[in-house]
């Protein structure tokens, strides 16, 4: 499959074949890290982060460095030409002159799509507002596949803020390509949006909505997201639910062998005592961002097929 010059903007643009191909190539990449250390020699990646990010940005920069490429970045876009009133289109068209690929994060939904329309080099979306973060979804799928040995046939639970969390929206959308059962654990106020549930229904994906982790039943994966206190109109409502959504050592009895994932950063929804348990895979999940992003960079630059 030739993905040269392809933009990675939204998981909605990807077919199941695209996803499977990226996962397979990422697996090969992880096995051949050293062999590929000069694969992107001579290429320059620009990281344009109009919003703060630690993990995603470092992960992309590390991925490019491991392939022998170079990274240039705008440290504080607010202090740069953007603050002088330059349009996003002009900013990316200028940055295009200095680089071979752009990774960008922007607070406005659709920003990466707009950027991709105005430049000829590939754009990788590292988050556009509350909309998409496709490389997170790909590394989540890669992690599930790697840790469980498959995706088809799994029961995958998602817990926390499913209303506003873009990672769970994208992940649920991508999982609809597979034969999975989904479980949504949320308080009434933070349920999965009806648009996503309608989509799952159309794709024939069974899902259950529950409010407490004790009703989870058998699950292979538990994907935890942060519940943001500020989303609750009434603080008393938040107090009611926050305890339920905390993974403590005693919660592991309910979870059995379920692997616990989290896009990070966490606040208090997973107790640090869990980190050493065999269930906890969230730091390995973060590490998986490296081979997946190395693969995406190599594919869109045409150095891997």
């Amino acid at each position: 499959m030739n993905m040269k010059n392809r933009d990675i903007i939204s998981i909605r643009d990807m077919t199941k074949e695209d996803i499977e191909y990226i996962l397979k190539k990422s697996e090969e990449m992880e096995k051949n890290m050293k062999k590929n250390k000069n694969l992107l020699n001579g290429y320059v990646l620009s990281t344009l982060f109009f919003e703060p990010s630690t993990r995603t940005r470092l992960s992309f920069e590390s991925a490019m460095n491991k392939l022998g490429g170079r990274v240039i970045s705008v440290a504080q876009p607010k202090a740069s030409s953007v603050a002088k009133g330059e349009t996003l289109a002009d900013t990316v068209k200028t940055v295009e002159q200095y680089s071979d690929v752009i990774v960008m994060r922007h607070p406005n939904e659709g920003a990466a799509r707009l950027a991709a329309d105005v430049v000829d080099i590939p754009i990788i979306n590292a988050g556009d507002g509350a909309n998409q973060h496709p490389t997170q979804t790909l590394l989540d799928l890669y992690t599930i596949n790697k840790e469980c040995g498959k995706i088809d046939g799994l029961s995958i639970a998602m817990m926390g803020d499913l209303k506003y969390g873009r990672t769970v929206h994208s992940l649920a959308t991508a999982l609809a390509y597979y034969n999975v059962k989904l479980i949504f654990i949320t308080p009434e106020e933070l349920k999965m949006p009806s648009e996503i549930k309608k989509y799952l229904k159309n794709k024939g994906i069974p899902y259950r909505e529950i409010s407490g982790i004790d009703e989870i039943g058998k699950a292979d994966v538990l994907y935890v997201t942060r519940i943001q206190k500020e989303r609750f109109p009434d603080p008393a409502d938040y107090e009611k639910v926050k305890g339920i959504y905390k993974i403590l050592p005693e919660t592991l009895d309910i979870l059995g062998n379920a692997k616990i994932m989290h896009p990070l950063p966490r606040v208090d929804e997973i107790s640090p005592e869990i980190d050493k348990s065999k269930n906890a895979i969230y730091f390995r999940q973060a590490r998986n961002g490296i081979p997946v992003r190395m693969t995406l960079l190599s594919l869109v630059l045409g150095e891997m097929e």
Partner: protein
Amino acid sequence: MKKELKVSAIKNGTVIDHIRPGKALEVVRLLNLENYEDSVTVAMSVRSSLHKTKDIVKIENRELSEDEVNEIALIAPESTINIIKDYEVVEKRKIELPDVIKGILTCMNPNCISRKEGSSKFIVEKREPVVLRCYYCERLMEEGEILKRLRI
């Protein structure tokens, strides 16, 4: 049997026919015809062979732009447009909703990049009832919201 004309014919202009019953006034508002200096004839709930009833809007001395036709397609997709010259129908076409709608609507999402720069673009996700997806922020817009945004 001779067909009886319920509304008078126009000499030059546009007849929007087969409008879904009850939608004629929305079409009038959409095209800002309340303040039109020439004559506008509105017929509502006219018996039709195609549907049970239909609405008709006749506009003297006016042709519609492509954007206007696309706007009508959003609220009354099954309508037909007849261009009249010297009492004769010189062109007749069915209004079809294009696959992509550009420019005529703003995205309902205040945080969408299209509200800041560039212009709006929507992908027609569903036709009956109309559902649009913003090309940029991917947010869905349903009929009620579309009407609101068309300022009807």
